[in-house]
């Protein structure tokens, strides 16, 4: 094989897969050449793994791991600086009476709130994540998406959660989606990029797999299920498909990329099912906040309540954890 120095060779795409993104036709061929996903099979496996027994020490370990993986999120039109500061305080000390409670991984806010969050979290090691690119619909021009990203990064966001253009994806304009993710990745600089596929709008598991690979090829550090604004948001079978994608990516390239289910995960029981899937579908290496996150706002309180229940041997009730 003769060495080529085409422009695609300069991208981060690992060489065995570089051909896949050469042009629209190659990308389409590659994505449609991925193995299909059988709906019955993946749903059956997801249900089967949900029955593992996680109790006592295993449960405590799982709860603490889950807390350390939470991206504590507020994405409301009504967000204020006060609300963000309250959330930051909660992120730092999730359970003030139990100082051994781990911190969460990140606080996730809209770009205009990044500055407030960064200030509130300075020195804590907790990252500020921001949803950019015209979240949640993404129906805005490339210029605005890039500017949105840049504003968030300049304000100090260490992680950017972008939404893909589902319209372009469903129309089959894969290269356009690919280039947009690449462009946003470039605009992120050193910030990590999480690519939101909005799986509820992609409708089929085949599409989820294709979109996952598209995001990985374009350099996304994480693939994320949902904005939380569309139903269904994260589901276990969808997360299984995405975990398989990052595992397959690792086998082919040696690179570790992450997965973030977001939206609708509210209980410890659900979170633990996701951890079992991470453990058995992707592998033990992914049981780490660098490679797995929960996008959630109300999950944390249930984790804290269950943590207390495990430690105290009795249930303490919702008034014993803070509402922020």
């Amino acid at each position, binding site marked *: 094989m003769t060495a080529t120095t085409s422009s695609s060779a300069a991208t981060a795409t690992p060489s065995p897969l570089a051909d896949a993104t050469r042009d629209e036709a190659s990308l389409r061929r590659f994505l449609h050449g991925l*193995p*299909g996903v059988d709906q019955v099979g993946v749903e059956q496996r997801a249900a089967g793994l949900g029955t593992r*027994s996680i109790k006592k020490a295993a449960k405590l370990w799982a709860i603490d791991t889950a807390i350390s993986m939470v991206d504590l999120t507020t994405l409301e039109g009504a967000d204020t600086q006060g609300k963000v500061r309250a959330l930051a305080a909660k992120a730092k000390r999730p359970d003030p009476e139990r100082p051994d409670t781990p911190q969460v991984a990140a606080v996730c806010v809209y770009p205009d709130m990044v500055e407030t969050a960064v200030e509130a979290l300075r020195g804590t090691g907790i990252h500020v994540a921001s949803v950019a690119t015209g979240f949640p619909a993404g129906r805005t021009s490339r210029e605005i998406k890039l500017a949105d990203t840049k504003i968030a990064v300049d304000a100090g966001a260490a992680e950017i959660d972008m939404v893909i253009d589902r319209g372009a994806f469903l129309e089959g304009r894969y290269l356009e989606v690919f280039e947009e993710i690449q462009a946003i990745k470039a605009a992120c600089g050193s910030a990590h990029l999480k690519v939101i596929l909005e799986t509820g709008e992609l409708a089929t598991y085949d599409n989820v797999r294709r979109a996952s690979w598209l995001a990985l090829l374009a350099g996304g550090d994480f693939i994320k299920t949902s904005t939380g604004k569309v139903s269904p948001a994260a589901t276990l079978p969808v997360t299984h498909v995405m975990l398989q994608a990052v595992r397959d990516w690792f086998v082919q390239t040696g690179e570790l990329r992450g997965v973030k289910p977001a939206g609708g995960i509210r209980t410890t029981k659900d979170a633990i099912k996701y951890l079992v899937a991470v453990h058995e579908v992707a592998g033990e290496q992914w049981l780490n906040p660098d490679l797995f996150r929960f996008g959630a706002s109300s999950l944390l309180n249930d984790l804290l309540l269950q943590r207390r229940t495990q430690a105290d041997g009795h249930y303490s009730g919702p008034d014993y954890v803070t509402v922020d």
Partner: protein
Amino acid sequence: MGIFEYAPAPESRDLANLKSHYRPFVNGEFVDGSGEPLKTINPATEEVLAEVGTASVSDVDTAVKAARKAYNNVWSKMPGSERAKYLFRIARLIQERSRELAVLESLDNGKPIKESRDSDVPTAAAHFFYHAGWADKLDYAGYGPNPKPLGVAGQVIPWNFPLLMLAWKIAPALATGNTVVLKPAETTPLTALVFAEICQQAELPPGVVNILPGAGDIGAALVGHGDVNKVAFTGSTEVGKAIQRQIAGTAKKLTLELGGKAANVVFDDAPLDQAVEGIVNGIFFNQGHVCCAGSRLLVQESVAEEVLEKLRYRVSTLRLGDPLDKNTDIGAINSAEQLAKIKGLVESGDAEGAQRWTSPCPVPERGFFFAPTVFSDVQQSMRIAREEIFGPVLSVLTFRTPDEAVTKANNTPYGLSAGIWTEKGSRILWMANQLRAGVVWANTFNRFDPAAPFGGYQESGFGREGGRTGLEAYLDV
């Protein structure tokens, strides 16, 4: 397993209501058999579970006489709608006692509780419900008006699905108006004797169901008894052939459900992750003690590496150990003899040059366990590609074209089941027509339903169980 240890969640063995002694069931009563008592052991711990009284040849005669009397005087005369009530009652009692039956089955057989609880026991109940529905509708089964039962059925069942095989045998026999003498396997008699209690609870007329624990000689005596009209056997091909010889020339009707060496065919366009699940389910379900297990994986050469890589990773996540723990995916091998047989065949695979890969899962020191094993580089001419291993051992072969897949899949003396994995619907239909197998699963494996007939080709036996077709084996048509 490393950093995320799951908590053990064993079912209490007290739920099994295990007794120290069990006895044969004849004419509605538990009786002392005149055979040598046998000890049934827990294959996961090698501890004796209970002593079980067995039948002798003279007890076989007593039981057949009881069944004949019940047939003549009560059961064959009863309207189908009345028989249906008994079957429904039995089905409901199986459901009511499902936890007890599941735990007992796992103790006696070694299978994981999640399989006995979620698969064996519910499917056994479903067979009684399904056949209860047929009992008063036999006129509409397609065999003409008022088809007649055969008489007394002598039934011999294996140790791999003790309760489920009992249900497959007894439910259609009773629904069609026959009475039954059944011999459970020597190593797994317990759930059959609890089923006998259920017959008493259901107030089934005495003699309609008789259960005789014992070894092969009792099976032979039952099959050979002059007053048995119908023989149904599930088990090894070897014994099946002996039964066929034994009753040749008699008027007895016979169905045999014997061994298998099923091909699970994976094409390059298959949904690979789910195909891997199907392969795992096909061969590691019930420790591979499944006559229709997908024990020969035929994978298209272009994806063979990828599938093997995925498969090894997936198999390494299977958890082997205490059958009563709900986290257990693979339980114990049913007996020391079976374990020795598996080991012998695996050694032949090594000797013939196949590549053996064994899951790194921890294996308990006591009990009969065998870690999941995958042989690659298997050739059609090797013993492990031709003989039924009946254990958690998969042989992986490759093919290049659909025609070659069909040729290799059919190149076996058996023909019980097959699997096809492809996203192309037309190929599924084409393959299903070419494959000589009683059941062909597409993009799934090991799915059972009382309404779906099951049975084999060639050395896998003949006759069908389940569905409308299954009724024929118990009717004089």
